[in-house]
């Protein structure tokens, strides 16, 4: 139960993430946030479980569905929201937006927009960590859809090879949320047991219930410890569900039924964890309400901060194309 005790703080952060995402959807509808917006609602236990298993100096990479990663890794909600608002105070100075959150100081090496395109980066980063003589590990979150890319395949085979000599402390987390945009796993992958696909690279893998924080967390701790100790890659398929549309524009969702979504929502990861905590006497109505209120305030403050802060200065346009002069 000591275990569950510490889960309380992750519960708190998951509530914040959910509330934050609701607010981003609202801000998007109000035209405050532009571009594409991919929220994380429904998948919170996956990122929370894995990030809870990271050490302070470990690092991670993910796709465009990245708000939760930044928040759970500790980036200030105000800076995350300001990025979505395209403000200079944003996590990437307003240059990246929703799909390209970055907080290198906290070991978050970015959100990327090309499906599968970040996987080789994570591979190389993992190698660099070992090459530098550290025991840091690299986590790479990726979607079920990303497994069908050439970038995935080439990286995984190389990870398998580099792991043979202990030079690849890489943890791959497949967030199987059932869909790549509107394409279900069964329609996009010849094999639907995604964890089994890693055998083609001799990479150990397991499939876990991605809705249950405690389950994810245990798997994450095993995977991270393995990678750290052995320098070998390891993979986890976390079976989860995307409550919202693919992005903010995906409203009609002709590819799935309302019933299916309803059904999935019954296993809401936040309510599941809440249930565990209540059952263990670690949470009651008042505490839950306080946590919700705390999230509410944090999100509203993030919005105010974002509304009030200035856009990037015109000089920012040409800054950061290149570094110091070659």
């Amino acid at each position, binding site marked *: 139960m000591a275990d569950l005790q510490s889960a309380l703080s992750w519960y708190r952060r998951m509530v914040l993430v959910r509330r934050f995402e609701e607010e981003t959807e609202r801000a998007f509808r109000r035209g405050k946030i*532009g*571009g*594409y917006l991919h929220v994380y609602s429904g998948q919170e236990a996956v990122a929370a479980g894995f990030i809870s298993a990271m050490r302070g100096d470990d690092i991670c990479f993910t796709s465009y569905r990245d708000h939760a990663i930044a928040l759970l890794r500790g980036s200030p909600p105000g800076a995350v929201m300001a*990025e979505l608002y*395209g*403000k*200079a105070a944003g996590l*990437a100075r*307003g*240059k*990246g*937006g929703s*799909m*390209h959150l970055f907080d290198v100081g906290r070991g978050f090496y970015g959100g*990327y*927009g*090309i*499906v*599968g*395109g970040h996987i080789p980066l994570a591979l190389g980063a993992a190698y660099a960590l070992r090459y530098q003589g550290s025991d840091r590990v690299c986590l790479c979150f990726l979607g079920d*859809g*990303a497994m*069908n*890319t*050439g*970038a995935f395949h080439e990286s995984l085979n190389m990870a398998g090879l580099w792991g043979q000599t202990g030079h690849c402390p890489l943890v791959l987390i497949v967030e199987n949320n059932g869909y*790549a*945009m*509107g*394409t279900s796993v069964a*329609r*996009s*992958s010849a094999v639907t047991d995604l964890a089994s696909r890693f055998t083609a690279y001799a990479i150990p893998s397991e499939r876990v219930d991605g809705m249950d924080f405690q389950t994810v967390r245990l798997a994450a701790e095993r995977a991270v410890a393995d990678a750290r100790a052995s320098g070998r890659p390891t993979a986890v398929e976390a079976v989860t569900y995307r409550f919202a549309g693919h992005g903010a524009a995906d409203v*009609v969702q*002709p*590819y799935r039924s309302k019933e299916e979504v309803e059904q999935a929502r019954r296993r809401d990861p936040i309510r599941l964890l809440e249930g565990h905590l209540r059952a263990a006497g670690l949470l009651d109505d008042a505490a839950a309400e306080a946590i919700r209120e705390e999230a509410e305030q944090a999100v509203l403050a993030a919005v105010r901060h974002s509304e009030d802060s200035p*856009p*990037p200065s*015109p000089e*920012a*346009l*040409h800054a950061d*194309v290149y570094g110091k002069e070659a």
Partner: protein
Amino acid sequence: MPILSYREAIRTTLIEEMDRDPTVILLGEEIGLYQGTFRMTADLLERYGPRRVIDTPTSEIGFVGAAIGMAMLGLRPVVEMMTWNFSLVAFDQIVNNAAKIRYFSGGQVDIPLIIRGPNGAGVQLSAQHSQSFEALYAHIPGLHVVAPATPAEAKGLLRTAIRGSDPVIFLEHAALYGSKGEVPDGEFAVPFGAADVVRSGRDVTIVAYSRMLGTALEAAAHLAGEGIEAEVINLRTLRPLDRSTIVESVGRTHRAVVVQEQWRPFGAAAEIVATITEGAFDALDAPIERVTGADVPMPYARNLELMALSNAGDIMRAVARTLYREIPTPNGRSSGGQSDA
């Protein structure tokens, strides 16, 4: 003539050609059950079934390459590239296979393949999703590169593409999907390599294509108010490039401004400038001006993004420079668009 949107023009052409020719098939991401990311293929799965409207995994190498193989066997695949940004994943397939197989096989196969989808910047899609790749593709022999600016062109050029025998890079622009215009009925087709003089004028030639045609026309309208008559040329296809129409026009106007959305260095406008320099050198009364996007990855923040894109004011100022005079311009200076590598 019926009024159609650019989107409808493309969609109805797909339908007409699919009805007419069973070898025309569609493939790409989210074109079926999802109804198309931009609804270009809405209802087509229901209409033609999953064998002709193929939803693919996120596998650009796989489905672009597969479409090339289908074309080699006599089908006429039309691939939807969700946006051209993703085509870089399949760049090898397009450049090393689609463009070259006819040649290195000694002419043994046709490759009647269309790859179509939106090219260029949207609104705040940031660096990886706001690119315009015409200069890259137009460099490659074996490809046709097409960039319609109006609904009629979209229809006419797509028909030519589908009935052709070579790979076509069909560059649409999402900013144009809702735009409307008259579209001729029937088996209307626009040939490749024929630019359109959209507006005639004697003072300066403005060369544009795709979304920037509208910006050029907006500039031309303002310029007319200042007594400057700009001739506006819409390229329609970049490969083949209608060099003679451009050269002939500048031969009359003696001045030229070339407009493109994307990064200036080694961009499409450079080829047009070189063409004019080669073909109309003696006629030129002023340096040719280029109006282009800023030479930076596209930033997310809207204020920076607007700076990175050129507007009618930028074109007007460029025209003014070719005339060695000052004119009032409507839009604020987009200081970003003029910088070099």
